[in-house]
Structure formats: C-alpha cells, structure tokens
C-alpha cells in the first residue's frame, strides 16, 4: 500500500462531495446546536441554580464539548456506514475503483482520511457555534477540535469494517438505534457518568465516547480529565488503529473474492 493511490481515493471523495459540503455541514451541526440552545441555555439555567459540580463552570460550558464529542461520534458512524454500503452494494463504485490500480488497503485509507476531513469541518463549525453561544472562549473551542476528530475516527474506522461485512443494510439502523443513540445520551456528554447506576457506569467508561467526551471537555475547559489524558488518547487511538486494520482485512475479504 503506497500513499499516492490512497490520496487519489481521498481526492475522489472530495470531488464528489464538493457541491454538497455547505449543506451537509449545516445539516451535521444544526441538531447539536439546537441541543446546545435548548439544554445548554434553557435547561442549563435551572441546573446552574443547583449544587451540581460540573467541572467548576456553567452547564452550558459543561455540555458544549460533550456535545461536540458526541456529534463527532455520530458523524463518524454516519460517514462510514451508508456511504460504504453505497460503494459496496448499491452503486458498487468501490468495485469499479478496485478495477484500477487502487488496492483495498488504499481504498480503506483514502476513505478514512476523507472521514477525518469531514469530521474536522464539522468540529470546526460546531466549535464556532460553541463560541457564539458563549460556552467557551475561542482558545478552548480550538483545543477541543482535535480530540473531537479523534473521537469520531474511533467510531469511523470500526464502522467501515462493519459496514462492509454486514449482511443486511438494516443493521445500520439497528446500530444507530441501539448503539449510537444510547451512547449519545449516557456517555457523559449531558451529565457525569457517576450519576448512572454502578453497572451502567462501568459500561459507560469502556465506550470510546466516554473517553472522547472526557478528553474533549478537559481540552475545552482546561480542567484535568478523569484519567491521565495520555490514557484517553491511547484508548481512542487503539480503536482507530484496530478498526483500520480490521477494515483493511474486511475490505480485502469481501471485495477481492
């Protein structure tokens, strides 16, 4: 696997996406911004009257980086699920691509590079929203972008592998309904996982999203994370790495029969 063909796959995605990037980015950040307004500003004023210890700041400031990480997860899963099924099964453009000098490894790497760029754009747009809402300063929002992209990639890489291996498209709906949505709600984005029953808390802290939320929040608010930051980073990086390797194996297995 050489870098050049992977970059061509990346370029192909960019060319195909060029007419849509404004609407797609707006669609990706609209709902998280609505959450930020309703829960951060609306619900947040009530929360701030209580005695919750939320990283020493307002609920809005607590929520914003959590939402950023959770949105990155959703975007990562979204960009690695339907588009991959499209390439493998509906339009089969992946199969057309693999008739060229591009290898399955190039295809995986180029696709994931593309998802990383999508995540970067969405994270930057959302970070701007955080600043506009007064949740964090510019520096805090900027520091939150890289951890959010890492969080998204921790989901995007294994999701690409799963999308190519799954037998039915409807599996994606199940993954979003029974995987992504519960993670979104219960992995520390909206409230500390210590509020969960003990067994659910133990479950939450092994999910990549909890590590992503912790890392993103600590970067945005300049507060120490629960674990040393390096452990959060290593855990998320391991998901990216193992996910990428499994995706390479899965693409070769399914598309080079």
């Amino acid at each position, binding site marked *: 696997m050489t870098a050049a063909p992977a970059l*061509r796959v990346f370029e*192909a995605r960019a060319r*195909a996406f060029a007419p849509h990037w404004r609407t797609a980015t707006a669609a990706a950040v609209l709902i998280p911004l609505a959450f930020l307004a309703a829960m951060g500003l609306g619900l947040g004023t009530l929360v701030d009257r209580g005695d919750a210890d939320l990283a020493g700041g307002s609920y809005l400031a607590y929520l914003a980086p959590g939402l950023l990480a959770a949105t990155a997860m959703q975007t990562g899963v979204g960009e690695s699920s339907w588009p991959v099924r499209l390439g493998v099964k509906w339009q089969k453009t992946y*199969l*057309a691509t693999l*008739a060229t000098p591009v290898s399955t490894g190039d295809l995986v790497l180029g696709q994931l590079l593309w998802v990383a760029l999508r995540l970067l754009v969405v994270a930057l747009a959302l970070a701007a929203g955080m600043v506009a809402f007064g949740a964090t300063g510019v520096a805090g929002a900027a520091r939150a972008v890289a951890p959010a992209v890492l969080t998204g990639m921790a989901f995007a890489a294994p999701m690409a592998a799963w999308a190519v291996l799954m037998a039915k498209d409807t599996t994606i709906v199940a993954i979003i309904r029974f995987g992504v949505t519960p993670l979104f709600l219960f992995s520390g984005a909206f409230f500390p996982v210590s509020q969960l029953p003990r067994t659910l808390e133990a479950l939450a802290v092994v999910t990549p999203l909890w590590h992503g939320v912790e890392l993103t929040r600590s970067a945005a608010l300049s507060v120490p994370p629960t674990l040393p930051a390096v452990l959060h980073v290593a855990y998320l990086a391991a998901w990216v790495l193992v996910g990428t390797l499994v995706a390479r194996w899965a693409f070769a297995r399914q598309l080079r029969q």
Partner: protein
Amino acid sequence: MIEASGTVQLVGPPVIEARGLVKRFGSFTAVDGIDVRVEPGEAFGFLGPNGAGKSSTMRMIGAVSPPTVGHLRVLGSDPATHGPAIRARIGVVPQEDMLDTELSVTDNLLIYGRYFGLPVRELRPRIAGLLDFMQLADRARDRVEPLSGGMKRRLVIARALLNAPDLLLLDEPTTGLDPQARHLVWDRLYQLKQRGVTIVLTTHYMDEAEQLCDRLVVMDGGRIVAEGAPRDLVAAHATREVLELRFAPGEQGDAVGLLDGVAERVEQLPDRVLLYTTDADRTVAAVTERGVRPDQTMVRRSSLEDVFLRLTGRSLVE
C-alpha cells in the same frame, strides 16, 4: 503496426495465458480448470449461459479475484503479485455499470481517471475525445442517473478507455440494450480492434460473438466445451442450414416421431423442432412427403446457438 492493407499485425508474448485455472467459492466450483491463450490484437470471446463461469474468469483476468488454483499471466505478469501494475494497463467494463449516478458524466470519468494517477490537465482533453467517440459529448455535464441504459453502457466503455488500455475486458457489454444501442457499441469495439486493442468479452448473444470475435471458447458449467473461430465452430458442430418447424399446440410430439432420419440431426425444443441439414429445400420436401404438416417452416443459416445446443444439449438463452 498498421499495414497498408489496414489489418493489424502484432507479435509478442500472449496477452492472457491461463492453464488449469480454477475458481471455487466455498464448495461451489465456478471455473473448473480452463486453459486460455489470447494473442495481442485479438478479439476473444467467452460464450456461455448465465452461471457458466464467464464472469469469474473475467474477474481473475482483471486481477481483482485471485485464482484458487492454476497458472495465470496477464500482460506477461502474475495478477497475484502484480495486480496494480496489470490493472493500470487494462480497461474493464463490468457486467453492472457501477457508476456514481449522482455525479455528472464528466465527473464520473474525471474521478475514475484520477485513480490511474492521470493528471487532470491530461484527463480533460482525453475525456472530451472519449465522449465524442462514444457519442456522449452533448451529455457531458448531465447527471448520470437519468441517462438511458445504452448511454450508461457507452459511458462505462468510455471509462474503461481512459487509461488507453492494452487490454479491454468487457463482461456482457450489450446485455439489456436495444438493437440500435447494441450496434453502436459493436461499431466502437470494432474500431478499437482495428487500432490494435486486444479485446476480451463475455456474451450470451450468438450474433455478438459472431460479429466481434476472431476466436472464442464456449463455456458450460465452469469448463470449456469448444474453442475456435466462430465460422469453424459452426462448421464443425452444425450443418450448413437449419430448418425450423413450428407446430400447432399439442402436435409437435406426434410429428417428431415421423421425422426420424429426415435430416442429419433432429433437435426438439419446447416450442419448435430443428432439423440440421446440408440442403434445406430437399429436407422440406422430405418432411412434406412423410405427411408432417407444421404451422410454420423457416430456413436459416446455422449459428453458434446451434453449436451450443449441440455441445450442451441446452439452449443458450433459457
């Protein structure tokens, strides 16, 4: 390379060389030990019904599907170790179009061309030329989705020619096209052949194989059952003429009993009886003499369809 007579003479190692090629999927054997040799500049066909192993063979030759067993060289290299280098020099028209239907005609070609590492400034004029060649120039900016099946097929052929391939692989290039669209594709493939491009195609259309192929193999059940030039195969496995008899419903069975020995070979199909003969007029007379009264009588030249029927006992398009 092009001589005064207009014919193309190329010498060199074979473009494709396969010996004992086998492809298994689990316990199913799609290709069961075939030997194939295709020379430079040749138009070569794999003829056979659906499920004969044609597409699996094409995918192995296209260096996208590793052979289970056997020796395979494409453009002198081993697809197992030189896949990207081989794929850089071949053009592939897959059975399904595999186009990005949301994108424009030009963008489909531009993106595909970039996979070969061709610079955009080189691709732009090449795309314009290929769209002209495939009669799609007026649709260059249009989205692919609303194009007709024939236009999409021509676009896929243009896509396969972007890298100026030495070998063009076409898997059922005209399946599902109307006659006019088919003839346009055939004409373009013929022009490419005249330019010296080696063409390998699969088809289950007799006329397509007869029109385009210098040489072909007939495949059935993963094996090659015959090989040769279309005309030679017809000469070897069929008679010069065929007399087709159609009967009123229910009468065919009784009639066949009376036709024994009336022609060199009598073949019964569900809807008609075929009589293989060197002299159809004489056979018509003999049939009448025996008191057989078909509803319709038709005399035609024998074709590869008859070769296939002879070799496998089955009709090609079922």
